[in-house]
């Protein structure tokens, strides 16, 4: 899990990129503020025209966050560029691929098609919120056990759609799984493994193995 309040010596690829450009450095982490520090967000240059800025607060993976956004921001860019939650991926940017899948009030959506301002007061869940106290979610465990990915780019979105499915149906049929995942595309073609991972996660959640 990424921590915003504890600078570390470790150089991450993302941190490196952030430090590499002045504009990125200025506009990197705006929010991810704990509730007791709400309102202390720095404002990136593009946000300094007060008329364009909206103070937004919502619950991200169970924790309240406050962030200042432009009305023209999508939820996806807000998560990735302003809250440092880069699990949801930007791929097609028009709802065709599912790499940006997150849950909004428990419902799986393309975060590239959701406006950030729509999320005021609502609950957003991303891949970063699935593991609890370092223990992976059963769907994550199952993806590892079944080797349900190759390049991994679709994986965060795929896992969120699988979680949403298993939240609604304890033991989905293969047909139901295929239909539920129809909005998530894997170019590596790992669908059979994903199918097995859903089966395995369903069993694990039911208590068996």
């Amino acid at each position, binding site marked *: 899990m990424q921590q915003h309040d504890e600078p570390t010596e470790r150089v991450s690829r993302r941190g490196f990129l952030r430090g590499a450009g002045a504009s990125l450095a200025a506009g990197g982490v705006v929010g991810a503020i704990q509730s007791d520090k709400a309102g202390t967000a720095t404002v990136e240059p593009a946000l300094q025209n007060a008329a*364009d800025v*909206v103070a937004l607060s919502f619950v991200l993976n169970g924790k309240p966050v406050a962030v200042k956004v*432009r*009305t*023209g*921001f*999508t939820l996806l860019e807000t998560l990735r560029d302003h809250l440092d939650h880069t699990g949801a991926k930007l791929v097609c*940017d*028009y*709802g*065709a691929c*599912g790499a940006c*899948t997150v849950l909004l009030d428990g*419902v*799986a*959506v*393309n975060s*590239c*098609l*959701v*406006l950030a*301002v*729509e999320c005021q007061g609502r609950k957003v869940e991303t891949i970063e919120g699935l593991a609890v106290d370092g223990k992976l979610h059963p769907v994550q465990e199952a993806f590892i056990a079944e080797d349900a990915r190759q390049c991994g780019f679709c994986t965060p979105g795929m896992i969120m*759609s699988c979680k949403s499915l298993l939240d609604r149906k304890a033991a989905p049929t293969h047909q139901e799984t295929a*239909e*539920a*995942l*129809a*909005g*998530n595309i894997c170019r590596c073609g790992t669908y059979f493994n994903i199918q097995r991972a859903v089966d395995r996660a369903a069993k694990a959640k039911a208590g068996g193995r």
Partner: protein
Amino acid sequence: MKNFDWITPATAKEAVEACTAGRTFMGGGTDLVTLMKAGLVEPAGLVSLSRVTGLDAIAEDGEGLMLGARVTLAALAENTAVARRAPAVADSARNTATPLVRNRATVGGNLCQRPRCWYFRHPDYKCSKKGGDTCYAIEGENKYHAIFENTTCNIVHPSNLGPAFMAHDAELVILGPKGERKLSIHEFWVRPEEDMKTEIALDAGELITRVDLKPMPARTGSAFEEVNEKQSFDWGLVAAAVRLTLDGDKAADVRIILGAVAPVPLRHAEAEKALTGRVPDEKAALAAAEKAVEGATPLRDNHYKIAMLKACVKNAILMAAARARKAGG
């Protein structure tokens, strides 16, 4: 995307009052956000329907079904009353886009979405629909374009619900600055020859609040069929919505509507006539389907749509007939 005022009214009346010049309504945003990203629309303000009360209900009574404009396609596809009372509508909702999109896309938005023509969607092409004087699809890449009524503009209307609503004679409840009005779905579509800039008969500031569907007569069935290149997230290559009532064992009160083949969904009177009074079996269905594709004017790359549409219409007729036989009454 450019910035905009963000307005979240609590009632439909407030929403209409807030939707002044330069602003536009936003339902699920699945089309609007992509149009804004491409710079095709740059609204000064978005009037969100997300908090408007009463727009997300599916109600059923003796008068039929009432679908709130903000009902999602996912809710529509899962609703048992819709499946029972307007099967073509349930079919079409289920067939649209992906589960992720259906969780956001709405009934009203599906009717108001803009065409998917890649020349229209491309910011660099000033086609006739965007105030230019050329339809680039005529000479250009036209695999997905119209095969009927395609002399001036070659878009196909992308709405799946449109043809299904036409099969059920839907009535739209519209709220605007001048008050409420009702409009038959058959009167809703605007051809490029009438007005190149729009596809629908909504005036500025008008909002669809509800879609009403009357009950079907006894022994009636309906169906919606679509053919896609791949199973999910594809706009139909061809589509057909059919409704018919059985009089004895013969088809009566037939509606055949073609989707994804013309700038508006097309109700096809000749095809309907070909099926009326006949037992809706494979042979009669094929005869009607052949009638439906007569007079097509395909472009260089979309001749394939003719055979595909024929099969699609035939299958929709057979499914509607099978459902009519099962229906009570």
